[in-house]
């Protein structure tokens, strides 16, 4: 592993532009795993994930002249990644346009806002095991932007501010996206816990 402090140095953009091998190596070593995880989270197949990772780094190097070190490298890399993933999902026609989870959520409550269909109680340990097994399948139903928001938040633990910059959304918008994704996945898991 080369010296990761290169990422914080002011000459990073310059070194990337010059295709400095050490700087390129640090960037790829630091972010490749996270990129592949996010691509998997967004529902890409192994080959698609590899292509997207490859293209993300190519664009990263090509756009180095526009990077002045103002934003953190990670925000910049993930911003590129997000755009590549959206392109891929669009090309593959994978994203469903209709999001009915708001109505599903509403239907769980009565007119006073109390539960009319409360969350199912199940065996907690069994449920945790099933959650691990089923979560990837249950994520599959959600749009890729929501999935990416979820993975960046839950798996990579990025701050709300950074995710908003990467996905180019407001924090209110991010809240709506995560609300929809989490409730959609919860509904899906619950249906499977009951099965």
């Amino acid at each position: 592993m080369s010296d990761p402090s290169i990422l914080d140095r002011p000459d990073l953009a310059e070194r990337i532009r010059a295709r400095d091998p050490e700087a390129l190596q640090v960037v790829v070593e630091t972010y490749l795993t996270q990129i592949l995880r996010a691509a998997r989270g967004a529902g890409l197949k192994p080959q698609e994930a590899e292509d997207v990772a490859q293209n993300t780094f190519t664009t990263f190097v090509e756009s180095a002249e526009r990077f002045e070190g103002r934003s953190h490298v990670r925000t910049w890399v993930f911003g590129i990644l997000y755009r590549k993933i959206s392109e891929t999902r669009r090309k593959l026609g994978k994203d469903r346009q209709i999001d009915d989870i708001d109505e599903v959520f509403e239907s769980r409550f009565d007119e006073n806002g109390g539960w009319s269909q409360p969350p199912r109680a199940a065996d907690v340990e069994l449920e945790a095991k099933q959650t691990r097994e089923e979560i990837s399948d249950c994520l599959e139903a959600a749009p890729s932007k929501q999935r990416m928001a979820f993975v960046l938040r839950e798996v990579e633990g990025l701050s709300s501010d950074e995710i908003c910059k990467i996905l180019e959304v407001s924090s209110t918008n991010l809240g709506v996206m995560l609300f929809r994704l989490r409730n959609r996945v919860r509904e899906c898991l619950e249906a499977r816990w009951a099965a």
Partner: protein
Amino acid sequence: MLNCKETAHAVSTEDVVPVGWRQRLAVRLHLMMCRHCRRYAQQMQAMGNAARDVFQHPPEDPSSPESPENLAKLQSDILDRLMQPPKHPDSDN
């Protein structure tokens, strides 16, 4: 006093939508008193834990680029490509 719907909504967004202390307190109080909402909150938590667990490990699929061998190969392929002089992006594959 928050109702269940408001509580569930708050619970599923509170880590990204900043709220004041009054709201946070109201959510905690409701959770203390309501087992359905507590259960909902636990499920939200479990979902995050499961995602971390699942995504932090490479999948068992041997074609996954996240498996250690494939990862090393992909990394060196990417570096080889990046170090070549610029040409038509995305055209060779």
